[in-house]
């Protein structure tokens, strides 16, 4: 067996992971209850965005319905817990349900692409939202459902910090599993289906199966996030699972950089935490946020993690332009 080579990029990623982990573990020392809650929310949003990044960034399938899967995970857990089922049984049930519904949502993607697919997934999200809101007998409608914090090995997770640690662990496990998946031949097949599905098919790559899997796995990640979100907020109602939250999840992926592994971490941080920091700006918050997103898309459509490459490319272009200008100047008599 050969050891993995430690390239500069690998070392940088490793250093980043270590620093981030240390920072996240130390953060509660400096934060009040609300700050710890926000970081927990960031971790779960990141989990859902990692899933969407797989579907959209790696496999190239646009989805505007990610919040619906968050809702499926959250309501599965809440409804089952209300019926007396343990959270730890509700969790796999919610994730499996999200996976299955995600698989079903993949079918339109086999027929339509791009903006048609965007609308199909948006319509799906609207449908799930309406079911959650209107089927009061099951979901409590707008009154919602109370959800208690679960226990882990007999230890209550009622404390915000304990539950924060659970959210971090969920993020770590999801990120690791998705990373392993992306490294496997599946990851390469996803990239092929994003780059050129017709060529992929002619090379024996089963575009159908991989498209469905890309949706289902992305949905399952959101299911995980939703299942842990319900006990985090102690109470769920339909509002976090509508169209606007789906757009925010999409923004997390786009802002961080689609198809970049750490994109969702950064994107979720910006979308989750920025509103809090910009609270002073009050009503101007959305304006500032909107301008930031527009500027980012105009300057660097590849997202924030693409900015260093973009800057390097611009520098190189300027250098070569200056070089050729100098060459011409020198050639002049």
């Amino acid at each position, binding site marked *: 067996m050969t050891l993995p080579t430690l390239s500069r990029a690998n070392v940088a990623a490793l250093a980043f992971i270590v620093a981030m982990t240390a920072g996240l573990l130390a953060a509660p020392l400096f934060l009040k209850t609300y700050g710890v809650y926000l970081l927990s929310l960031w971790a779960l949003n990141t989990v859902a965005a990692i899933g969407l990044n797989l579907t959209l960034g790696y496999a190239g399938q646009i989805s505007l319905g990610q919040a619906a899967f968050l809702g499926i995970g959250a309501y599965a857990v809440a409804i089952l817990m209300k019926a007396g089922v343990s959270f730890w049984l509700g969790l796999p049930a919610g994730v499996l349900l999200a996976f299955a519904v995600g698989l079903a949502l993949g079918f339109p993607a086999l027929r339509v692409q791009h903006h048609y697919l965007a609308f199909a997934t948006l319509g799906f999200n609207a449908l799930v939202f309406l079911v959650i809101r209107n089927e009061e007998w099951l979901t409590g409608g707008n009154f919602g459902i109370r959800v208690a914090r679960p226990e882990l090995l007999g230890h209550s997770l009622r404390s915000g910090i304990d539950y924060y640690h659970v959210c971090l662990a969920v993020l770590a496990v999801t990120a690791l599993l998705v990373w392993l998946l992306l490294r*496997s031949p599946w990851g*390469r*097949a996803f990239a092929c289906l994003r780059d*050129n599905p017709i060529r992929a098919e*002619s090379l024996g*790559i089963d575009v159908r199966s991989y498209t469905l899997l890309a949706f289902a796995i992305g949905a399952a990640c959101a299911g995980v996030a939703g299942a842990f979100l319900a006990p985090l907020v102690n109470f769920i109602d339909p509002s976090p699972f509508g169209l606007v939250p789906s757009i925010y999840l999409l923004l997390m992926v786009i802002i961080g950089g689609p198809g970049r592994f750490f994109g969702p971490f950064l994107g979720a941080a910006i979308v989750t935490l920025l509103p809090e920091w910009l609270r002073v700006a009050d009503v101007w918050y959305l304006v500032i946020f909107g301008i930031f997103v527009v500027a980012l898309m105009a300057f660097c459509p590849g997202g924030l993690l693409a900015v260093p490459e973009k800057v390097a490319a611009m520098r190189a272009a300027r250098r070569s332009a200056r070089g050729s200008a100098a060459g011409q100047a020198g050639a002049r008599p």
Partner: protein
Amino acid sequence: MTALLEVAGLARAFGAVRAVGGVDFAVEDGEVFGVIGPNGSGKTTMFNCILGQLRPDAGRVRFGGAEITGARPLALARLGIGRTFQSLQVFGSLSARDNLIAAAQEYVGTLAGRLLAAPDAGLTGRAEALLARLNLAHVADKPAGSLSYGQQKLLDIGMAFMSGARLVFLDEPAAGVNPRIVGEMAAMLRALKAESGATFVVIEHNMDFVMGLCDRVMVMAEGKRIALGTPAEVRADPQVLEAYLGG
């Protein structure tokens, strides 16, 4: 020798345009079969009808004696039929090496098994060997989209061979390639053929390339086969001369 590929009465129209108007031919196992003809004579349409990109209006296609008419591209790939498209088709964001691995990984194990397989599905060695054969070893780690046109073209051809296909269709492999490299490419194809034992069907406009590489050549004009024979026979055929000079 037995026929590896048999095509009978293959036809396909686009509205009033009879792009392919009933073509018959058979490709022997192990030969290099050339297809030439003026622009718009239906060569690519014929490929796409055989290879599942287009549904033929009429006709039959058999591969190794089995009916494959109208089969989907995925099924044909799995039967061991490789191809390139007339336009360049590589996976631009993947490295050259990953393009070759992608072209063969689905032939290793099962779909579920590949989730747990080694990242390269055990194909790095084969990919490196093919990259060396294609003179692409020095760009193995570069994204395919950043390579020169000629390099991408070579990679595209390599991908059609990577899975060990028995029958490989190439649509204008030499088109747009630097004339200096065209000779090199013919030599490479000959070497690939010697190693893989694959049978080729090659569309090409470059006559030197076709005449040097092919065992037999079929000439098409206006969707019909107008000649079929050895390069020398075809070259001497008055109908062929007319199709190219007249028209």
